């Protein structure tokens, strides 16, 4: 099978599973959503008190186990990290703010589009704009530094975190919160979610599909290899929805599930997500996969996502079907300004360093 076809097929697995999970009970257009699912987990752990979005999403546990298992078998499970962890944490934090203003990560954006939600097109335009801005910084030398080998034990921390989540999901201790109404109360059967999540984890680890990477390569090096994966997600999710969820297919901007149609903030929310994803070197799903295969920098980023979700609800930043709260709008602007300043600062400091090296070597 050719590389592009393989990418399309891997993406297709993910898109189809998104449609199946929605059919089996996941919230509308949320068969898979990495940002929403981490947000639900943050709620279940009591990090925020938005009672309608608290659930330990088994898909996330499955994705981590799937990526961990396949990387272990193929010898790619390796401890590495040490590349600006605090910067990654903050970028993950702001990425989540942007995602919760749009109401979905880039993966849900594609799945929303595949079920007729045209607000996702505005989100897509914002996402590509954010990526385009990020690419300009890459061209000027932006980097968070090279990651290095870490102590062996550190690679097990993220999979163990997933195991602890699984134990909480099974025994349901009283300190873990589960929604009784709203999106957090809706979910496909646990076992099926775990298994399909694991399939998604394997497909993503093998294919390296990254929504940000796909658009980045298309803009930066005119290469469409990863873009075929994104197209596969869309096409198969669309076909899956038309077959499995036809009664819920709704082409248009209004009355879309767990979405608002405030164009400006759909656009800017995803601009922030795109920019942060490029500065981090991957979108939320890619960060989750990398963390599962031993990348401690990606694990720190995921913890940034979780804390970002907690703050988004505690500080009233997250949007809802009613629209985007004032605090959320301010937070998105702060996030974009922060990300731009950070990228500019990184480039300036690396230029200064190279000038110093030049003087030293002269």
């Amino acid at each position, binding site marked *: 099978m*050719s*590389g592009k076809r393989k990418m399309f097929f891997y993406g297709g697995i993910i898109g189809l599973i998104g449609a199946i999970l929605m059919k089996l009970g996941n919230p509308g257009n949320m068969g898979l959503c990495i940002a929403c699912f981490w947000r639900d987990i943050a709620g279940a752990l009591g990090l925020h008190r938005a009672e309608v979005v608290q659930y330990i999403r088994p898909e996330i546990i499955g994705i981590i186990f799937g990526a961990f298992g396949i*990387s272990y078998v193929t010898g790619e499970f390796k401890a590495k990290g040490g590349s600006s962890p605090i910067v990654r944490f903050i970028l993950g934090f702001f990425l989540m703010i942007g995602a919760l203003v749009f109401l979905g990560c880039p993966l849900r954006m594609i799945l929303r589009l595949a079920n007729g939600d045209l607000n996702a097109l505005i989100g897509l335009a914002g996402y590509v704009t954010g990526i385009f801005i990020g690419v300009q910084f890459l*061209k000027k030398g932006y980097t968070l530094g090279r990651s290095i080998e870490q102590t062996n034990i550190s690679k097990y921390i993220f999979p163990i975190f997933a195991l602890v989540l699984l134990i909480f999901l099974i025994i349901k201790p009283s300190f873990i919160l589960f929604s009784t109404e709203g999106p957090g109360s809706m979910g496909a059967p646990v076992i099926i979610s775990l298994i399909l999540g694991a399939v998604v984890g394997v497909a993503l*680890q093998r294919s390296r599909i990254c929504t940000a990477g796909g658009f980045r*390569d298309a803009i*930066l*090096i005119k290469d469409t290899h*990863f873009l075929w994966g994104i197209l596969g997600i869309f096409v198969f999710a669309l076909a899956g929805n038309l077959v499995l969820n036809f009664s819920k297919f709704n082409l248009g901007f209004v009355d879309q599930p767990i979405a608002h149609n405030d164009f400006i903030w759909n656009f800017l929310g995803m601009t922030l997500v795109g920019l942060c994803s490029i500065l981090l070197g991957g979108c939320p799903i890619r960060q989750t996969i*990398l963390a599962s295969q031993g990348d401690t920098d990606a694990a720190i980023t995921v913890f940034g996502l979780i804390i970002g979700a907690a703050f988004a609800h505690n500080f009233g930043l997250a949007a809802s079907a009613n629209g985007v709260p004032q605090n959320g709008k301010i937070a998105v602007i702060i996030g974009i300004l922060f990300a731009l300043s950070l990228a500019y600062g990184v480039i300036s400091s690396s230029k200064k360093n190279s000038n110093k090296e030049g003087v030293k070597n002269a």
Partner: protein
Amino acid sequence: MMKEYYCVVTFDITQHALLFEKELKQHNLGVKLMPAPRELSTSCGTAALVMCEDKDKIISICDKNSIPINKFHKLEVTNKDSWFTKRILKK
């Protein structure tokens, strides 16, 4: 059967790949930026496909112009039907 090879250069940061491409094109050497091959990396960073026989010239150009490269890889073509292989053999 004679083994066939292709060569790929990897970088620590994307900007180095862009500088590398620009410099090699100025010297009329074959170069194509691409996602790092799966065999080399679990990340989706940028790499450069080059002609194996140009290795010495490439190293010297990079030294002269202070373009840092991570590694010069020589890989055996294993799956002749893959898109990647076809792309190499077409060159």
